[in-house]
């Protein structure tokens, strides 16, 4: 090594891994660049679609109780922002509580199952049973059991969230680098240490893949729950507006849900970028 200086090595690495270096040192510019290259095109498409919709509704003279124009929906939203924000917060709260509950139980189960084939074989069929049962069919039952408060909504959101987190958790906890595992075992590391030092971080890519799916699903779960016991939340807003043929309000609720969905997805992506900077998936400009 004597004949090559350290600086030469640095130069070499920088030349060999330009994008990887960017990922670490160019963080801020990267975010800005992504904003420009992703947000602008999608905003452009969105505005174009809204204009098309507006023109079509006005041109065809479609009655507002069938399909309101975007301008009607936006003015309804704008006129009662507090109302939609309040109801949206209720739904979001139920969804997040359900997600935390579902993912928490799933990760606990995955921890047990990753350590014991016996537990995996006995618990997995049960989990599959939960998964294949249509949630919509169970929802009325949950209302009977847990009343008309937030509990049935949280449970439905939790049930929907549960399975992806469980399966990916088990796979993730098991997908460890065999060399790293051998190294820890050669140090006589305890199961707990292997779990915390190796299995949990190794599972992160799998867990985030699950969360990307199950977080939007948890919102769906909360809305479905609200359909059955309509008093609060965007689901109940939709039911009430529907029976009144109040399409602007119904679409306002849908827009709010879409907004919540986008926000949550972006949030997961941002956290994922932070946590998984070391993973292959972060090396490309994926948003």
């Amino acid at each position: 090594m004597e004949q090559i200086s350290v600086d030469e090595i640095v130069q070499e690495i920088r030349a060999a891994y330009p994008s990887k270096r960017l990922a670490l040192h160019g963080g801020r510019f990267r975010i800005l660049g992504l904003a420009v290259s992703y947000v602008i095109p999608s905003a452009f498409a969105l505005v174009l679609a809204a204009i098309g919709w507006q023109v079509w509704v006005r041109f065809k003279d479609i009655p507002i109780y069938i399909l309101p124009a975007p301008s009607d929906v936006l003015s309804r939203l704008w006129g009662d922002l507090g109302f939609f924000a309040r109801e949206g917060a209720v739904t979001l709260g139920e969804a997040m509580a359900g997600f935390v509950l579902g993912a928490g139980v799933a990760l606990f189960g995955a921890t047990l199952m990753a350590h014991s084939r016996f537990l995996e074989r006995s618990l997995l069929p049960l989990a599959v049973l939960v998964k294949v049962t249509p949630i919509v069919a169970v929802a009325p039952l949950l209302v009977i059991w847990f009343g008309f408060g937030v509990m049935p909504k949280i449970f439905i959101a939790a049930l929907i969230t549960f399975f992806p987190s469980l399966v990916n958790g088990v796979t993730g906890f098991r997908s460890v680098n065999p060399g790293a595992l051998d190294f820890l075992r050669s140090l006589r590391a305890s199961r707990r240490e292997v779990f915390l030092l190796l299995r949990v971080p190794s599972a992160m890519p799998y867990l985030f893949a699950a969360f990307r799916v199950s977080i939007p699903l948890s919102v769906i779960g909360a809305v479905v729950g609200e359909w059955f016991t309509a008093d609060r939340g965007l689901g109940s807003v939709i039911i009430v507006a529907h029976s009144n043929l109040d399409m602007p309000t119904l679409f306002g609720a849908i827009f709010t849900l879409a907004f919540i969905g986008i926000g949550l997805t972006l949030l997961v992506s941002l956290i994922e970028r932070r946590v998984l900077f070391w993973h292959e998936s972060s090396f490309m400009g994926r948003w």
Partner: protein
Amino acid sequence: MTLHNGSFRANGEAHLSIAQVSKGFVTPQEELIALQDITLEVGRGEFISILGPSGCGKSTLLRIIGGLLEPTSGSVAVNGRSPREAQADKALGFVFQEPSLLPWRTVVDNICLPLEVNNRHHRDTRYTTEGMLSLVGLGRFRNYYPFQLSGGMQQRVALARALAFDPALLLMDEPFGALDEITRATMRYELLRIWDREKKTVVFVTHSIIEAIILSDRVAVLSSQPGRIKTVVDINLPRPRSEGLERGEAFLDYSNLLHSLLMGGVKNGANFSR
């Protein structure tokens, strides 16, 4: 140079002794005998290589020595204790073919990993890791992540990680196998330099004849299927060794000898003279 010079016994005090170790694997198709009746002693501070064709059971033997695998019969003693006790004593440092670093940890944190296990913080953790970093020439890269390093640098981190908790016995399984020829040659002498300073006992698995000759005090040649020790060759080359040696006549003799041993042209215990 005679083959029967080579000995299965250690020249000094035995640090590692392998006694009649056999290992069979039961697969759905057949019962495979990976290792048969391996007996070998390794002296304290000795550098021994295990040389053999692919699939002859080198990794299996190393994993048995390191307590990662139980032999079907026979026994292994490290310092007179079982491999599992040696693990608990933190007496074993493993380096694998792949660096096997934790990609979410920086270079320093990877080297610190063994010090965190069992909460056995050394008195001078920082000092040790700093020492290791400069020993493997990576002081400048302490806060880099593995994906920002070249393969050879990653392997040096793995070496530093194995040395960080000061194990007396280093077990290396083709540590340079994934590297290109140039890096490999550099790493060879880097390892020799480190071994000179640290005075560890090293068991080095390889299928490179050059590597085996340049590094070792002795080379155990394994035959395959079943894996047995064909012979043990003493490498009587002066130390410290340098690259010039690779072009010397003595080196070529050893090279030819090991080559024909590997190719199966030499019967067990046959005489060799030059």
